[in-house]
């Protein structure tokens, strides 16, 4: 991912990995499963990258897993390249926040006690209205 966004003028390259954690709300998590509207998700990722590039000038690439992901594995990777660290950190942080509130992806957690649960999230209705 880093190679895709690195440029001769990049003084700062950041690669953020979002990993699946083994605990959430005092419950032991074994894995998560991601559901996605893939066509819309690809469109939203393009929009997020375009918006961030035009605002910060940073080069940015994002990958998000679908299906089952085990504890410790990366579910999302955000690679950012920018002339200076300030733009790189801003671009990386903004990308993750936008992913969490706009990307049509859903997460089901699987627990040690055999239970599983779709996690609550951010309504897209506010984005469309």
């Amino acid at each position: 991912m880093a190679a895709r966004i690195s440029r001769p003028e990049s003084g700062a390259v950041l690669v953020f990995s979002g990993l699946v954690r083994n605990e959430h709300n005092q419950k032991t998590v074994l894995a998560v499963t991601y559901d996605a509207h893939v066509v819309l998700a690809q469109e939203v990722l393009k929009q997020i990258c375009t918006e961030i590039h035009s605002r910060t000038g940073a080069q940015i690439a994002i990958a998000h897993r679908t299906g089952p992901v085990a504890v410790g594995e990366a579910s999302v990777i955000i690679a950012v390249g920018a002339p200076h660290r300030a733009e790189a950190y801003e671009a990386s942080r903004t990308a993750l926040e936008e992913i969490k509130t706009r990307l049509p992806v859903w997460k089901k957690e699987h627990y040690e006690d055999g239970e599983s649960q779709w996690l609550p999230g951010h309504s897209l209705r506010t984005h469309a209205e």
Partner: protein
Amino acid sequence: MNESRRIRVRFFGAFRKYFEGKAELELPVPQGLTAGAARSQIGEILKLSNPDFPSPEDQELLEQSAVADESRVLSDGDVLDRALELSVLPPVCGG
């Protein structure tokens, strides 16, 4: 222009528990139907095929869900005359 046609409605995330196999149904779409009205009709169809729908959580989930066509999230007032497919998108939780 076809007065009333039927289009596929796909479901995601927490809605999948209402379906055995494929999480989708067919919705009659008369001319001029809006996305908001389609959401209400989808709720009625789910009620018919799922005796335990809607629990209070289900109703809230549907109310919070966006409706999208094949390429974008719709506003409630958007008319579906050119929609080829709909999707019900519950509150998202990526990352």
